[in-house]
């Protein structure tokens, strides 16, 4: 008797489960786990946030400039490591047209700690607060810190998730390319 003439046996649960999981992932995946790197090549979502100094800052008012956005929080250790290095980059390339925004994602109740941390680190770039998490959702800031580079036409060109020693060299290389465009 050939295999093809045998009656079909029902699939075991161990075989059904992966198929079900795959289907669920295909259907729900985009809603659950979209990486920020998918933003590359797309127009940067516009936003307006209040800054540490009190003024409101809108991204689209910096069209024509190269913008680096860094998302951070007080509970993020690598963020504390990265911020002074970003300040150095800002100091060096500010005159060449670099705009740097640091977006804090702490909850409303932790904003005082966020302000204190920004003042302690003495960063010279604008620190913005996104307590409503609207901007972090638009930029899919799932991993912290998140660094996004936007070109002069408002298109996201580079996204870096997390921070390790040496990442700042990559940022510098990328932003030099954009500043030279």
């Amino acid at each position, binding site marked *: 008797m050939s295999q093809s003439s045998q009656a079909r046996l029902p699939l075991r649960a161990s075989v059904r489960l992966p198929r079900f999981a795959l289907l669920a992932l295909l259907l729900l995946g985009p809603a659950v786990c979209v990486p920020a790197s998918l933003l590359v090549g797309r127009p940067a979502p516009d936003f*307006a*946030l*209040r800054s540490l100094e009190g*003024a*409101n*800052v*809108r991204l689209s*008012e910096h069209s024509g400039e190269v913008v680096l956005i860094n998302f951070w929080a007080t509970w993020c250790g690598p963020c504390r490591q990265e911020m002074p290095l970003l300040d150095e980059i800002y100091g060096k390339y500010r005159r060449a047209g670099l705009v740097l925004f640091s977006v804090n994602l702490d909850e409303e109740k932790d904003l005082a700690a966020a302000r204190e941390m920004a003042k302690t680190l003495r960063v010279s770039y604008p620190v913005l607060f996104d307590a*409503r998490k609207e901007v972090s959702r638009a930029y899919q800031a799932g991993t912290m810190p998140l660094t996004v580079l936007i070109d002069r036409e408002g298109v996201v060109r580079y996204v870096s998730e997390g921070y390790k020693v040496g990442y700042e060299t990559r940022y510098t290389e990328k932003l030099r390319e954009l500043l030279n465009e």
Partner: protein
Amino acid sequence: MLRQSFLKTIATLLPLLFAAGLANAQADAAAATTAPLLDSSAPAASAPAGADSFKSLDEEVQALKKEVLDLNRELFVLEEELLFPANTQVAVFVSMDVGEFFALDSVTLKLDDKEVANYLYTEREAQALLKGGVHRVFIGNLKAGEHELIALFTGQGPNQRDYRRGATIKLEKGVGAKYVELKISDKAVKAQPEFIVKEWE
């Protein structure tokens, strides 16, 4: 979405049209350059023929660009008409007529107890409003009937003090689009800003 898919189609076709035009121009130029071999008495004919074909190609490209811009505008209007049909459309605008008593920072709108807009104004945007600009802070759909619109303004009042004012408006939505203007105006008598609500016909 309709506009984006149409623009993608145009972006795909544009290089093809340009390549086709270029191929035609090259064919014309080739024909023009071969002409002197047949007729040695007219060597200068190839240069003006090439320039003419380039000029017509440039004109074609310009015409195509204009067409794309016109189509983009039409699609934008169509998108708004589809998403916000006139019989359910409601739009809220903010304008300012102040300078001395209120520096606008943000506006929050709640429609039937649901937040529908929260807009932060930068200094540049606030200056634009002071110069007579009108900002459409919200556009949406509402069923016919009575609705409540709550507008909350924050800013700096007299003596650089933080200031928050609210205005509650009862909206009667009938057939046709509803346009509401929230005007922030100086009230010199009380040295306070006041919020005037105006419905456009």
